[in-house]
């Protein structure tokens, strides 16, 4: 939505911080805009430009569903300067948020179809927005399978939803896997793409939505092809370094597409038409 000055962030207070992983390298930040009138309504898959004043900005995918708009939830893995500073913050601290940016998952086109989610690590964050959106509009969608993997059981994010909420939803399965288990782990031990092949979903009437680290995506796409999914049935979301989020800074282009404007959500068919620079 056009604004007077799209580069100006809105101040938002961190209400609550939830450590998602055992090591604490992923935290969910629940934030409220200081000015409740701030126009910010997103769709699943969209991102926000998050400011830590004094450090800078980074594009973060929104992990809350628009059906539960406030507080806004941002699940962030600590990797660089900005995310490290963000992780040091405490409830009550104020950050900047602007957006939402980018396109969103094709929630209209998905209506009536079965959905197969395949997430890895922090890659579940954007999928979570869509999963909760779909569950809140349960009647519009078919069966839901959520395949999710992490390096270890401690690295699985959004545990309450994984273990309690989602499996309890009608016609919804949650299938977990880890690269390395521990003594308490009863579930699968396999890399996500292998696990996906073991689960062997039938592509008929399905849309596969995947997000995770680049190497997981690469092999997951191969596995999906093996299982017979068409390029148009596969949806993924990309991450690229961004500075403005609004198509000016010239950074996040892949060919003539800007991830911030035309993405981050692409079907495999679209990706295949783009240069492999991501």
């Amino acid at each position, binding site marked *: *939505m*056009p*604004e*007077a*000055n*799209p*580069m*100006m*962030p809105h*101040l938002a207070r961190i209400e609550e911080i939830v450590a998602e992983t055992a090591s604490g390298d992923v935290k969910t930040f629940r934030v409220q805009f200081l000015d409740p009138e701030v126009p910010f309504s997103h769709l699943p898959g969209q991102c926000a430009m998050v*400011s*830590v*004043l*004094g*450090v*800078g*900005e*980074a594009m973060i995918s929104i992990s809350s569903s628009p059906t539960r708009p406030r507080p806004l939830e941002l699940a962030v893995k600590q*990797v*660089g*300067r*900005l*995310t490290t500073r963000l992780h040091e*913050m405490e409830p*009550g*601290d*104020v*950050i*900047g948020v602007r957006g939402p940016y980018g396109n969103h998952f094709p929630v209209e086109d998905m209506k009536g179809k079965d959905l197969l989610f395949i997430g890895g690590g922090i890659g579940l964050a954007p999928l979570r927005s869509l999963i909760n959106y779909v569950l809140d509009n349960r009647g519009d969608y078919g069966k839901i399978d959520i395949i999710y993997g992490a390096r270890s059981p401690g690295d699985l994010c959004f545990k309450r939803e994984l273990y309690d909420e989602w499996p309890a939803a009608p016609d919804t399965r949650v299938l977990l896997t880890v690269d390395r288990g521990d003594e308490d782990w009863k579930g699968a031990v396999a890399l996500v793409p292998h696990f996906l092949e073991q689960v062997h979903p039938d592509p008929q009437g399905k849309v596969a939505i995947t997000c995770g680290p*680049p190497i997981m995506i690469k092999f997951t796409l191969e596995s999906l092809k093996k299982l017979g999914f068409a390029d148009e049935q596969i949806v993924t979301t990309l*991450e*690229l*370094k961004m*500075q*403005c989020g*609004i*198509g*000016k*800074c*010239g*950074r996040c*282009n*892949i*060919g*003539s597409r800007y991830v911030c*404007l035309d993405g981050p959500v692409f079907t495999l068919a679209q990706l295949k038409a783009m*240069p492999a*620079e*991501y």
Partner: protein
Amino acid sequence: MRCLERKDLRAFLDKLASTASLVAPVREDGVVVFRPVPSGEQVELDYVNPVRSAKEFFFPQTEVMFRFLPSPMASITPVEPDRQIVLFGIRPCDLAALSLLDEVFLGGDYRDAYWGRRRELTTLVGLACERPDESSCFCTAFGITPGTAEGADVMLYPAGDWLGVEVLTPKGQALVDGALPGAGEAGEAGERVKQEYLNRAVPLGERVRPGELSKELDDRFDDPYWEEASRRCLGCGICTYLCPTCHCFLVTDVAKRDDGVRLRCWDSCQFKDFLLMAGGHNPRPTRKERTRQRFLHKLNYFVHRYGRYLCTGCGRCVQHCPVGLDMATVIADLRGVTQHA
């Protein structure tokens, strides 16, 4: 069209300098650059094009976007450009570059407030090219000529001992009304001079024709040319920083204990950390990808998005790339034509 006697040009510039901040070409240590000038006396009139383009007056190399107090006090104070300037001596290629950058900064769903404001605050006095540099200027390759006035508020056409003064916008009208109240009419002679400029050939521009290159490039992402050409690239940012149409920037904060500013600063797709992500992943890790990005962006990607080439043939990269990896050369190479007769 009005008529300004050549001998009155300095007085005209003096008048501009006395009523607004005048920015004009000056010769500094042998190099011509745009600088704020206190009077017409300092203005250099014998130049092809200032080495640094005019874009920095609309898109400064470092620009404060807002001031802030860091958390927990956390507040944000907008900073808006407010200096009115008259930019004198801008050439048709740089004028065209501004209109290309208007597409980027003002087009689409998001209007860039800083660029927009600076554009509003600036009056552009264009100057037709008496002597384009035959070995580097190639504006005509992109449909621009030594007399193209598009984007100017006032255009000057030098003609011996006088200059034709064409007013193109209300802003330009106000400027001429204020600084040239008594100027006579150039009449038909003025139109003739203008036409001569518009029809003037620029030799390199005739040889370096992009033609349908943009379409051809759709299928040349994997052309071995990129590998070959990029070998001689130094990985510096001369081309991108001198280019009047390059507009990549980064955003960074500078903070003291009790105050901070958010800045945007020029950045270059030629630098290896341009796309380096926090996790260490780099989608364009070598010079091959970075070289290809620069040229495909201007010759193909931008055309897909905006319908025009992102180059105005100003020739700065041609003149200053230390290894001859410039736009004219690359277009000629890609089209398989000899650049120089």
